[in-house]
């Protein structure tokens, strides 16, 4: 199997261009049948475990659906947009929404900044330091979210954490016994640190591959023409890296907007009095701790809609600047 995979396809392919591009009609129908057969397993899974639940999510959000309804003890009560008006009228929802957007923005910006900087750095050093960096980054990337969260929590532990000890050691005596999860913003910063730590490697690896794919002569030609490093980066490298950058950004937005594990584990389910709730944790708590499945579903719908909106806007803006440049 591995031996075959190293074969160069070109060598094996018979030189017969345009041979099979025009096929008789019957072959076409046969193709459609085989294709349908090949697509069936994926289709069944995706429709039943993704499309149908998505439909159900919207459906549930329109009903009063609590403990009584879930156990079949009470009839369903159609609320229409009732759950949504309740949600939009709740100051807590707006706080959670603000939390989510701010937190995601910091995480996305952080992972992009760190990832791109390190990709550029990695492209300028010899193999050994680069291999070390990649190994460390792969380690952070591979660490399960729960494991990463627990380690960061321990490093920043109030009593036994290394960070507080080091900070106290260098003279910041105020840091002795400092709780990193008590204040709202400090707690968010701590979680953001963990999230950036485990998500910048994706950006780094992607951007590094992109930088490597740029022919060296191009950069050389630019510098021969007298372009400064900054000018080369902006006018030569950036346009070539733009498609990858778009993908890395969208991927990061999608990931960071729906963070659950890190917030749940590190702030113990949403922080002191729910100060660190984000939409995902909020929906979970409403549904499974508060038995408000209908309201929880409405939060889920809002989150899905927002995520799609952000992605579309981002793509629009990107395409716009791409045309102007």
């Amino acid at each position, binding site marked *: 199997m591995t031996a*075959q*995979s190293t074969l160069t*396809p*070109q060598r*094996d*392919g*018979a030189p017969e261009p345009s*041979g*099979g591009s025009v096929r008789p009609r019957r072959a076409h129908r046969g193709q*459609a049948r*085989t294709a*349908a057969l*090949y*697509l069936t397993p994926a289709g069944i899974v995706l429709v039943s*475990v*993704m499309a149908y*639940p998505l439909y*159900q*999510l919207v459906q549930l959000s329109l009903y009063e659906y609590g403990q009584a309804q*879930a156990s079949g003890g009470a009839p369903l009560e159609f609320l229409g947009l009732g759950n949504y008006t309740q949600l939009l009228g709740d100051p807590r929802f707006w706080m959670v929404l603000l939390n989510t957007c701010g937190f995601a923005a910091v995480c996305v910006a952080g992972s992009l900044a760190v990832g791109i900087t390190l990709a550029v750095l990695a492209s*300028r*050093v010899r193999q050994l*330091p*680069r291999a070390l960096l990649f190994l*460390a*980054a792969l*380690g*952070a*990337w*591979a*660490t*399960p979210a*729960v*494991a*990463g969260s*627990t*380690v*960061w929590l*321990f490093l920043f532990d109030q009593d*036994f954490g*290394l960070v507080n*000890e080091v900070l106290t050691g260098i003279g910041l005596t105020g840091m002795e016994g400092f709780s990193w999860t008590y204040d709202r913003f400090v707690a968010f910063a701590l979680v953001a640190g963990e999230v950036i730590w485990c998500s910048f490697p994706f950006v780094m*690896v992607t951007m590094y*591959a992109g930088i490597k*794919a740029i022919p060296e002569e191009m950069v050389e030609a630019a510098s021969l023409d*007298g372009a400064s490093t900054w000018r080369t980066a902006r006018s030569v490298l950036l346009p070539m890296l733009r*498609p990858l950058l778009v993908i890395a950004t969208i991927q990061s937005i999608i990931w960071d*907007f*729906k963070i*659950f594990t890190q917030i*749940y*584990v590190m702030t113990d389910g949403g922080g002191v009095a729910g100060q660190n709730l984000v939409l*995902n944790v909020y*929906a979970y708590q409403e549904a*499974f701790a508060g038995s408000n*499945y209908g309201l*929880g*579903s409405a939060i889920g719908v809002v*989150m*899905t809609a927002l995520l799609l909106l952000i992605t579309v806007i981002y793509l629009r803006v990107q395409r716009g600047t791409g045309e102007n440049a």
Partner: protein
Amino acid sequence: MTTATRTAPTTGRRRKQLFRRPGRTLAEITTVLVAAVVAFPLYWMLLTAFKPRGQIQSTDPRPWTLSPTLENFRRVFTVNDFGRYFLNSLLVAGVVVVVSLVVSFLAAVALTRFRFRGRTVLLVMILTAQMVPVEALTIPLFFLMRSVGEVAPWFGLNHLGSLVLVHLAFSLPFAIWMLRGFVAAVPAELEEAATLDGASRFRFTWQVLFPLVAPGLVAMSVLSFIHAWNDFLFAKTFIISATENQTLPLAVLVFFKPTGNDWGAIMAGSTLMTIPVLVFFVLVQRHLVSGIAGAVKE
């Protein structure tokens, strides 16, 4: 703008190279330092897992230990049945990888090597499916699994089958999208040659195409494995009362206690949870990087 301000480009370049030397050394030192910082949490986790209790619950933590011990690991395996949870996690992730490998490969072949009506629509749907925040589906999926459990208990709530189902579904869109690029890269002439040699389409698919897209399959498998292995939300939601069917992420959290966290056990558990993924990742990193870059360039 590009006027010849530099009269002697060759000397300019030589000077630049001369200056680049110390610059590169600085860059390399920075790189190694950054690598150390990035790797540090992992080192700290490993170290704590092997530290005796007295050195962990200490207000004066040291970045080394002279008396490594296995007592944390022993506690993890005896107090909490970690061996079982480890196997549970392995089972879920393993089944997800094998099934999604076959299913997404078939779908990718259908979407790239065949022409039929509605193909573009399907492609767009798969692309959109990747954007669906699956975490938002927790609530309907909870009720879906509850009803499934009435018909097929193995795939219902409190059973590992429910986790397999959801992770399979969540890994498919990206896997199909990723493999599509790899399948498309195999030239059509190859298929014609195989057909001329008398190979059926089935044989071509499994004996020629499948091995040729191996790098994509490896990258895809790693990503779906990690996805299923790391999951916390669905394990927490679906496995409510059957503690024997828990997976690793939940088992670790047992050692967080209001009376004081057992950091030694938490770190030992986290280490056990991290090592398989880490080994897997490092072993296939070459394939992974090229695989992701290949998919991303699409």
